[in-house]
């Protein structure tokens, strides 16, 4: 049974700490975005996001991590766009033509 101190995370440099914060902020933004997707897809997208981040959990190269973060941000933007599109279509279907003046 590992002692509590052995389980403790290694001390990070300030830059590493900031980068880690960016990853967590990205994960939080993705989860926020998935609040608006269909419930049937929500769990799948969250699982996928989590496993994608977990895959590089032990990555130490600062450049690689930053590249992964920008890739993640692109994927988040794609997700946000498709959510916005489907919401607009849903609103249009529910409330009639959004562009009609009547």
């Amino acid at each position, binding site marked *: 049974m590992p002692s509590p101190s052995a*389980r403790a*995370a290694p001390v990070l440099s300030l830059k590493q700490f900031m980068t880690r914060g960016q990853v*967590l*902020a990205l*994960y*939080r933004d993705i989860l*926020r975005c998935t609040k608006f997707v269909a419930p049937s897809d929500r769990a799948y997208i969250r699982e996928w996001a989590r496993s994608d981040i*977990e895959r590089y959990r032990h990555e130490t190269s600062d450049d690689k991590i930053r590249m992964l973060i920008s890739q993640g941000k692109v994927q988040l933007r794609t997700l946000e766009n498709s959510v916005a599109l489907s919401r607009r279509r849903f609103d249009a279907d529910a409330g009639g033509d959004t562009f009609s003046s009547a």
Partner: protein
Amino acid sequence: MFCLARVALPKLAAAAAAAPARRAAVSAIAAARVSLRPAPAASLAFARLFSAGPAPLTVQQIEDRVLQLLKDFDKVDPSKLTLDAHFTNDLGLDSLDQVEITMALEDEFSIELPDRDAEEILTPRQAVEKIFLNKNAM
């Protein structure tokens, strides 16, 4: 003259009928005005019912719901769960779990926590504090 009288009489009768009716109406209005001014305490409660929304959450209610939410989280060992159980040190959760938990708390209480508040939540008690201070919590 007969017909004049016939015309006049109904008018007089109407006037006579109207007078008591008017008097009754006036006294009814006065009575209504009086009844519209109820005792101050009663009117405050009445006003609160329709304008203030649901009653604010008590700390006990928030604590119960936070602990229940964590119990439902499968990575959490319920036997180790207390109000001061630290997510990382005591419950063995990682930072991604912490993000998931704060997101679930936001959903549960219908609030949005700013990032810097969310990342400070490392025990259930801290979650309760942040939620209690958020006036939109329900």
